[in-house]
């Protein structure tokens, strides 16, 4: 009788542990997913803010690709001593985001951003409906 009880107990415990393992694995996947969503929120927020600057205080740079932004050769419409660093290194709720590329010369202008330190990268296309995510 005892061997049968031991075998039954073992089966019960192993099946429960296996189920518990699956739940823990699911929790890890969900934590990673949560982190990715948070990163996407930060990048999307930075894109909104940057475009606000490019259509506001930095409007003189709107039509110029970011590869052509040089402090010594800014368009005449720009005020003297305009600082470019705030545009190149943005911050969302304390997390730094870097501008990789702004290209307004495409049929639909594109903005590419990356979390500082080689984090998540996302591109956005500016259409009639605003910024649309392009994917990593």
């Amino acid at each position: 009788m005892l061997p049968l009880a031991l075998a039954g107990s073992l089966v019960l415990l192993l099946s429960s542990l296996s189920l518990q393992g699956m739940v823990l694995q699911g929790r890890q996947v969900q934590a990673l997913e949560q982190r990715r969503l948070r990163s996407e929120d930060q990048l999307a927020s930075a894109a909104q803010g940057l475009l606000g600057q490019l259509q506001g205080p930095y409007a003189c740079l709107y039509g110029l690709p970011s590869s052509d932004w040089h402090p010594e050769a800014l368009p005449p419409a720009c005020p003297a001593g305009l600082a470019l660093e705030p545009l190149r290194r943005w911050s969302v709720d304390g997390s730094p985001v870097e501008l990789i590329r702004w290209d307004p010369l495409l049929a639909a202008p594109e903005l590419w951003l990356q979390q500082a330190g080689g984090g998540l990268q996302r591109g956005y296309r500016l259409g009639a409906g605003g910024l649309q995510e392009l994917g990593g």
Partner: protein
Amino acid sequence: MAGAVFLAAALGSLQLWGQAAAGSALQQQRLQQRDAIDRDRLLLQRHWRQRFGADASQPGCVSSAQLLAEAAHLPPAAALQRQLQLSADGAALLVEWGDHPAPRRRWYTAAGLGLCTPAGALTDSQVEGLE
């Protein structure tokens, strides 16, 4: 002896099953909340475009305060918390979904939503007038 061993194993197993079921329910709840947040985010963006898209033919931008006022008129789905807050300089609107300590947050600007028209740009009617 055999009965005692089996009973102990069954009780331990029951406890583990209970924990697993609770964990699984929590995961399901988080998935549903993520979907609800995405739906609400898309609904908000569509609402802003429908409300202000026509005004984008006028030079200038919709203000963040206008975005906030419109968002406040669109109630979130039941069981979803949404909070709205203007940035210190009033240039952007923060939308925060979900509970503390881990809410989702997105900043919005009229420019990012396509609700700005540069002062120098021509409207459709002006273009037609030139043709």
